[in-house]
Structures are given as C-alpha cells and as structure tokens.
C-alpha cells in the first residue's frame, strides 16, 4: 500500500517528464483506437450493406453450385428447407431465387441478360426489394408475365414500363426457353454492374420459362445479428433437411472480399507494432532517466532494508499509474472522435466498390476492441519495457549509490 502512495507521489515530482510520457502513451493509444474503430466500422458498414440489400448473410445452394453455377444444380424442396431454417433462432427471413442467362430484346434492341426469378413477398422482407423500385411498380401477387428491369438494362434497351421484353434462353429440359413479358418497372439495387443486365421475374414465371418447377438455385437467409453469422451457418448446415446442400456464410460466398479484408487487416498489426515501438522508446527513455536520477534514493531504500522486489514494484507502479491516466484520457478522446466519425463518416475521394456497389463514405464505429486492444498494447509495451530499468534500480548496491552525487 505504501508502495502505491510513494509511486503516486513520484509521478508528480517531474511534471513535465511525466506529462511527456503520458502524452506519448496517450498518443499511441488514441491512434490505435481511432484506426481500429475506423477500420472495423468501415468494413462492418460495407458488409452490412451488401449482405442486407443483395446477397444475404447466408446463402444456400446445391452442392458445388458456388464453384460451378449450372442450371441443373438446384434445391428441389426449398419450402421444406425454408421451414427448417425458420426454426433456427436468430433467422429473420429467407428468400428463394432462380438464375439463368439469355438474350433479351425490346423491339430491335437486343442484349445479353441475366434472368433472376424472385419470390416478391419473401424478397421484400429479406432484401427490401420493393424499396429498390425507381419507376413503375413491383410485382403483384398472382400476376404473371411481368418483368422488372435493372436500371442500366432499361437504358441499354431504351425501354420502360409498358414495353414488352422478349427473352430467349435454354430450358432445363433442353428446350428453347422463350417468352414475352410486360415491363412493369425498373429497379436500382445498388449493384451498378448487375443492374446493367439483370431482369427480374416472379419466381413462378422464371420456373416456367426455364422448366424448373418447384426448384430454386439459391436461398438467401437474413439473420438478426451479423456477429452470429458463422455460428448460425453451422447450425443450419447441421439440420437434416440441409444435408444435401451447401450452407455458405458471407465469408464464403464473398470470399474475394473477405480475403482482401483479411489482407488489409494485417496492416493493423503493423501499425500496432509501430505504436508499440514508439511507446516503448518513450517510456524507456523516461523510466531509465528517472531511475538513473534517483540512484541515490534507491541506494537509501535498499540500505534501510527495502527488498529488491519492492523496488521493482515501485518503479512499475509509477509506470502503471501514468499508463492508467494515459489510457483513460486517450479513451475519452478516442471515444469522442470515434463517435463523431461513426455519425459523420469520412468521404473518400474515390468510392470503394464491391459487388457492384459503391461506398463513398466510410463510417467508424464505437466498439469494445477499439478500446481493449490499444489499452493492452500500450500497457504491455510500457510495463515490459520498464522491467529493465526496474531491475537495474532493484540491484543498486546501496553504498555505491549513496556515494554518487
């Protein structure tokens, strides 16, 4: 106890030096905190956007479909599978989809199209499809032979609501799939690239066209908490109804993004390394200096019987005290900055694109690890680096030390 009080008082003996050291540690902490928060926040924002508005958190396909998306690899009983998925806690919604490619024409304008069959009601709940309609209207239950075009596709085909779109493709039974649809609206999904060649059909229309009755290529699952995705994916895969299908969390189906993100995260470690270095040097300088200054004192302490261990503790407590102050103040500053950045965000000069979606503003977020990681790093660096001078202090030979002037 006495050690604490002595340590605390020692801190204030050299105000300027203490201030500098605290500032160094605080600087390191704040820097680490802000950059971790910004990185986490940006990625969380991007992931949340592309999963919630397009690709879902978890996708279900026939085995091998992700690698090789063929027309025939389907989920043949998606209603049953869907019911099983509904039973898993944490799942909010699911939506089935059918995919194919073909040639679409309006009048003489023809282009390659990606055909996407969706269940309008389920898609509304899962990815808010109705909110993406920018002209015309969404699908009505029961109406057939209607299509909604992606924004870019409507431009390429110079078409809009009221026009007729003719599609030619290949049916799953080998026949030439062809049919005509009335364009009832156009959609902007956020996926600029996709919107340029995607046409949406109701699920039944798509199944009709492609001769895939009762079948779907993909089921998109939305969960309530992004952090639970991996766990829920495992739970879903374990369900008996899902045995013959592949359950992929976004980390798998958005693997290219995930890999890039992981690679980018390596950078955070390097940054932390630099901060450790800086803090270490700053603290080492100070503590070494202090220890050398007080050689005589330590000599006296040892002479009156203070054990080496206690001397070490004395030095370390001093460092710890500065560290606590640094971390606390740093936390306050970084909390403020992180919070502000999570609301305002930073506008990037050139937007980051993934999955055809553009992200122009990056938001930070306030989270626990933006506090704990820097705190641990700075504290550990400071304490570890102080061990050497502490030991030096503890080993002072009393007589010699007291003779120094």
């Amino acid at each position, binding site marked *: 106890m006495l050690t604490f009080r002595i340590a605390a008082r020692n801190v204030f003996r*050299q105000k*300027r*030096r203490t201030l*500098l*050291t605290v*500032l*160094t540690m605080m*600087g390191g902490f704040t*820097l680490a905190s802000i950059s971790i928060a910004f990185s986490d926040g940006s990625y969380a924002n991007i992931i949340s956007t592309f999963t919630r508005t397009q690709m879902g958190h978890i996708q279900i396909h026939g085995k091998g479909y992700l690698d*090789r*998306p*063929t*027309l025939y690899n389907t989920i043949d009983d998606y209603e049953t599978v869907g019911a099983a998925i509904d039973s898993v806690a944490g799942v909010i919604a699911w939506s089935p989809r059918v995919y*194919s*490619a*073909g*040639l679409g*024409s309006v*009048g*003489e*304008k*023809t*282009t*390659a*199209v*990606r055909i996407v069959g969706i269940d309008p009601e389920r898609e509304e709940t899962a990815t808010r499809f109705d909110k993406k309609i920018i002209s015309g209207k969404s699908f009505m239950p029961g109406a057939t032979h209607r299509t909604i075009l992606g924004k870019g596709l409507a*431009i*390429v085909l110079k078409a809009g609501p009221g026009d007729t779109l003719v599609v*030619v*493709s*290949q049916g799953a039974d*080998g026949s030439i799939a062809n049919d005509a649809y009335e364009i009832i609206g156009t959609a902007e999904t956020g996926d600029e690239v996709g919107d340029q*060649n995607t046409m949406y059909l109701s699920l039944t229309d798509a199944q009709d066209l492609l001769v895939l009755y009762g079948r779907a290529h993909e089921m998109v699952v939305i969960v309530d908490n992004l952090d639970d995705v991996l766990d829920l994916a495992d739970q879903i895969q374990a369900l008996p109804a899902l045995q013959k299908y592949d359950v992929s969390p976004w980390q798998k189906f958005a693997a*290219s993004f995930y*890999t*890039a993100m992981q*690679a980018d995260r390596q950078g955070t470690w390097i940054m932390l390394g*630099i901060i450790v*270095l*800086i803090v270490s*040097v*700053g603290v*080492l*300088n*100070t503590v*070494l*200096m202090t220890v*050398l*200054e007080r050689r*005589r004192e330590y000599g006296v302490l040892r002479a009156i019987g203070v054990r080496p261990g206690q001397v070490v503790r004395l030095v370390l407590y001093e460092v710890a005290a500065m560290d606590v102050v640094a971390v606390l103040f740093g936390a306050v500053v970084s909390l403020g900055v992180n919070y502000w950045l999570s609301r305002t965000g930073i506008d*990037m*000069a*050139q*937007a*980051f*694109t993934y999955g055809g979606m553009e992200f122009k503003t990056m938001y930070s977020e306030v989270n626990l690890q933006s506090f704990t990681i820097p705190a641990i790093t700075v504290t550990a660096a400071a304490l570890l680096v102080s061990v050497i001078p502490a030991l030096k202090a503890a080993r002072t030979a009393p007589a010699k030390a007291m003779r*120094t*002037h």
Partner: protein
Amino acid sequence: MKLYIKLAWRNIMRNKRRTIIAGLALGIGLASLIYTDALWIGLEDNMIASATSSFLGEGQINREGFRRTFEAELTINDLDSVMARLSREPEVEHFTERVLGLGMISSPANISSISMVGIDPATEPPLSQIDEALTEGKYLSGDNPRDLLIGRKLAELLEVELGDRVVLTVAEAHTGELSQEMFRVSGIFFFNVAEMDQSMAFVQLNQARKMLGIEGQAHQIAIDFTHRDIGRDRKNPFWARYSTDGNEAAGWVVLLPQLEGVFEMSQFSTLLLGIVLFAVVALVIINSLFMSLYERMFEFGVLRALGTRPLSMGRLIVLEAGALAVISIVLGALLCLAALLITDHYGIDYGGIEFAGVTFRDLLYPVVEPSQFIVYPVAVFLFTLLIALYPAAYAARLKPAEAMRRSF
C-alpha cells in the same frame, strides 16, 4: 560554429544507449515512411500493368457512348482513316482493332452470358496477354473461323474441353435478329481475373463481324504507347486528337476511374502515415532531448555561469538534435534498404485478390525512387531541428544558479 558541432556530436555520444535507442526509433519511423511509399508506388505500377497489359491496353478509341451500353451499332467512325493515322503516330507503339458483342454461349450442359470479342490474331498479341495465358490448346491463327478461346472457369461451367463444340448467340446490329454460330473450343486460358475467365470468348475478328452484321467495322482500338505516362495523362494532346468525328479516345486513367481513386488513397495514406510519424518523431526527440538535458543540468548551469550566451545554449541543443537526426537517418536508410531488398527478392503475393476493379496477377514489388531517399530524410532532419527548438528554448532560459542546484 565548428566547435559547437563537435560538442554536439560528443554530447550525444556520451549516452550511447539512449542515442542508439532514440536513433533506432526515429530510424524505423523513417524507414516505414520510405518503405510504404515504395510499396504504394509498386502497387500502382502493378495495378496499372495488371489492368492494362492483360487486355485493356494503355488507351482505347471507341465510338462515343459505346462504353456505356456496348451496343453493337456503335462502331468506330472512319475506322480505316483512324487506323491509318495511328500507324503514322510516333507515340503509338502498337494498336489493334476489336469487335465486341454481348450474347450467350451455350453447351449441352449449361448456358451463360458472354462478351464475344473478335480479335485480329496478327496484331493482338502485343496488346493483351491472351496468348500467354493459354493453358491448353493454341492461340487463334486465322486459319479456322470456327476457333474459339474461353477461360478455364467458363469451360468448367459449360463442361466443355478442348475440341468440344459450343454455340454463340448474339444479336445483329440494327436489326436485333438473333445470330447463332457453332464454334469449337480451340484454346483455354487462365488469367486469374474473374471477369475474363468467366465471361469472355475470343474469336476471329471477321467471324464476329459476320455474326453482328458489321462488315469492315470495329468497336474498339486498343493502343499501347511508347511512353507509359501518356495513358495516365488526361491532358495529353493525343486524346483530343482522336476524340473527333463522334469517336472518343481515352487513356486507362479514364477507362478505369477506380484506379485513380486508389492512387489518391495511396497519397492520402502516405500523408497520414507521415503525420503520424512526425508526431512520433516529435515525441521521441523531445523525450530524448529533455532527458539528456536533465542529466546535464549541472553542466548547463556551469556553462551559463561561465558566460555562455542563451542563444549558444539553444544552438547546442538544436545541433545535438541534428546529430541525432543524422544518426537516425543513416540507421533508417539502412533498415529500409534491407527491408526493400528482402521484399524485392521475394515479392508480395496478392494474386487473385480484387481491389478497385483490378485483380492482382503478378507479385507486388516495391519501387525505389532516389527522391524517396532524399526528400523524406531531409524532411525528418528539418522537422527534428524544428522540434528541437522547444528544449533549446528551455536550455537557453536556464538560470545558472537554479540549474546547478537542481542537479544531484
């Protein structure tokens, strides 16, 4: 002055451990700055090369509006005269014409959207790496109009191998009539770029023209220049010269705007790192200098008492900082060189990862420019001197008696 410099050097050498530690810290900071800069430049070069040499070319001439909709009707105006002028341009190293059509490719197993690209096998090789990316079969040779090259991923999707037959369906320009032809897979390539491996099919130029009903015309001319910077420079007169008569000429910087975004980001990132590092430098210098100040309090008191003027005291401190800076710079430069050499030997593999619309293919190497080893060290040196003014001012204002008493 010379006396002070000698003094300064000797002073900082007195506490070797502290000097080395501070020097290392600063040195690492400097090394990081230079290394990051080199890496970013390497990244830029790598991405530009990846993007332009695999297929895009350093610049392209298209009909106005073509790149937005890829309509088959939008062919280059006055193709022959444009090509003739290009062949006389001294800045143009290579160029080739291409025909593009969006359509479908189908096999008994599957169907997929495709970009049919008609190329002239004679002039195409310098502008794209299709021939180098072939893993099976042969490059188009102009003999067989039925030859077709597709990516490995697409071949797997269609479940076809070399020699198998596929059907390409496109719509004719102006009429929209569907035009189908059967082709034989004569080569399979692997670019490790998703877009190319999955959705491009290369055929003979004239075959593509026939199918689209655009005899003698082309949609795109890809160009490589003698100087790499032309593609990056929006204002180069070449672009204006060829953006006439309804055509538009653009360098890769315009064709791939996201790339430019990356470079701005790299500058921003380096700037940020620079600021951070300078903050670090400031703290370390101040720390170091004050430590050494405190240590020598008595000395300084004596110096003042002996009549040394405040300015000289300050000068001494600043020079010591300068000496420290020099040591740091040397250490930093050596560290950096070592790191650069190692990285240059092994390269960094980001293969397959897509960033800003460009997929990495070759290994990433840092690019060292002499300016890096001049500008950054000088900046660090000057900044150190600047920061040293603070402890220097402190030293200058020391009162002799106080100083001598504050010692131990």
